[in-house]
């Protein structure tokens, strides 16, 4: 890691240079309360001072809701061609918990089998992080994701009159040297940055007791009453999955085109909360009730990948809490598990 300073009066030129040279994706204001990450052509459209984005930026780019995997042609022979499409892209203004969500996907799409459809895009993505204000539902601080140590090329922390810049990769360093002059960070800059991080962390008001969840979850796993209460209002709609920066479930579709000669396989996001999720041919459903589906979602988010990667598949962004029509609140539920065990 290298540490640099970018003066505020040079920021605009730096960003303009990036927009000029790259497929540039950044946050822009959609309506009063929501921003969205979209390709931008001018700095005027960019608004890094955002509170909420509905669809996580990195997931949207690297693991799009619909993605072609295979094209085929049926004739005397069948010709099959993998479809792996990507272009050099700069993702600008993503915050720490969403970077950590992407870091999870990086690990997931490398485990056992390497998913080239993900990695081809990931390899060509330049990530420039910036801190954003947490919402009242955000519990990233408890999940240790309010700060990113990896997964980005540059990270810009706004110290008021200047940016404290962490340079994490040679690719990031190239950008530092390309457009405007960055200064080396001084002892004073480090001191101000430390103070800045203390103040930043103080903004996270939602806290969860995640440390004790690991074993307590197993203890109350079979407590049907408890889980019925938690999942009582669930509509099995899958909104929580769609907005989650780490959810990766998908279905694969195979469609013949109207010429009946060419076709394609595509994957599209699926949701572990919908009733058909565990349905197999023959009609047996391995997870027919919503309590079990919600329980399995919590296991997947808060246990399974802690074992596999040492990282939770939940970054505490709070999006699912805000998206849930039934007001199911993962943060409250994590704390309820602790309370239930201590009764």
């Amino acid at each position: 890691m290298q540490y640099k300073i970018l003066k505020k009066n040079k920021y605009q030129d730096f960003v303009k240079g990036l927009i000029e040279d790259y497929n540039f994706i950044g946050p822009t204001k959609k309506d009063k309360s929501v921003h969205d990450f979209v390709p931008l052509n001018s700095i005027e459209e960019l608004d890094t001072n955002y509170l909420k984005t509905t669809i996580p930026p990195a997931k949207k780019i690297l693991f799009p809701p619909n993605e072609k995997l295979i094209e085929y042609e049926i004739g005397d022979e069948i010709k099959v061609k993998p479809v792996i499409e990507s272009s050099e892209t700069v993702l600008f203004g993503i915050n720490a918990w969403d970077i950590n969500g992407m870091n999870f996907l990086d690990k997931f799409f490398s485990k056992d089998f390497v998913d080239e459809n993900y990695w081809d895009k990931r390899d060509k993505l330049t990530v420039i992080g910036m801190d954003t204000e947490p919402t009242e539902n955000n519990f990233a601080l408890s999940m240790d994701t309010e700060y990113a140590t990896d997964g980005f090329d540059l990270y810009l922390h706004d110290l008021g009159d200047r940016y404290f810049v962490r340079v994490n990769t040679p690719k990031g360093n190239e950008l530092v040297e390309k457009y405007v002059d960055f200064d080396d960070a001084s002892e004073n800059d480090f001191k101000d940055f430390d103070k800045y991080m203390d103040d930043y962390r103080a903004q996270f008001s939602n806290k969860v007791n995640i440390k004790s969840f690991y074993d307590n979850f197993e203890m109350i796993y079979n407590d049907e009453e408890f889980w019925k209460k938690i999942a009582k209002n669930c509509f099995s709609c899958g909104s929580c999955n769609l907005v989650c920066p780490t959810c990766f479930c998908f279905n694969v579709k195979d469609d013949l085109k109207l010429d009946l000669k060419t076709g394609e396989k595509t994957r599209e996001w699926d949701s572990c909360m919908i009733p058909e999720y565990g349905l197999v041919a023959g009609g047996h459903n391995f997870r027919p009730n919503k309590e079990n589906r919600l329980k399995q979602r919590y296991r997947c988010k808060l246990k399974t990948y802690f074992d596999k990667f040492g990282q939770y598949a939940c970054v505490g962004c709070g999006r699912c809490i805000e998206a849930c029509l039934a007001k199911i609140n993962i943060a409250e539920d994590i704390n309820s598990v602790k309370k239930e065990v201590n009764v």
Partner: protein
Amino acid sequence: MTIEAKEKEKDSIYKPFIATIKGIKELSSTEKQFDIQIDDKETREAFNFKPGQFVELTVFGLGEAPFSIPSSPNNKDYFELCIRNVGNVSGALHKMKEGDKVGIRGPFGKGHFPYEEMKDNNVVIVAGGLGMAPVRSLIKYVLENRDDYKRVIIIYGSINPDYLLYKDELEEWQKRDDVEVRLTVDEPCEGWQGEVGVCTNLIPGIDCPVDESYVVVCGPPVMYKFVIKELEKKCFKPEKVFLSLERRMECGVGKCNHCHIGDKMTCVDGPVFSLWEIRNLKEAI
């Protein structure tokens, strides 16, 4: 790295290779056997599977579904699939004919039947219905290497005699004096020589020492709970009891997540798990 090697590496894990249906045989009123030969010679030679593993089969234009491989791993030229006409892909397959093309990915599953560890032990197979398909690969292998194993006991249950799969082979195995075959059906027909009832009933009669015995179980979801109970009564060692599980799969490579059981994925960690593992997997059974 050469350019070629790099391109190969970029090959998609979702890309099937093309294979031809070389033969079709009716096994019962609902199941057919398909002999599948991979077209590309190099790929065919590299296709080495272990008993208990599965493939993802594509019917182009319809979709993909997972099927375990019932044939012997020693058969290198082609492999067999035993497919019940029950879903979209299997329904379409049942309408296909010899010479038709399908897509194949695999073989998949790190969890297979531990045929190497089983050597010098008794092998007890408990199969129900279509559960005969995955375990047949192991039976074939064991019988082809018969001297490496002690007693071989096959317990196989089905609804009625018509639904028993691989009838000619069952007959052949029954004739051998080095295989003990016990068949049972729920609804016997006239002249039925075997047992009547569920295959669970035959477990108390297994008379081989548990320390030197491996048990392999495969059948419909409802069967496992009862079979496990009986096996536990006999004190079979949970690390020597193996069960092949079914779940919905969309990818076979540990990405789509549909086959999650507790902290494991059926496609990459299974589909064969030891009873010891299954005891630690909530909702596996």
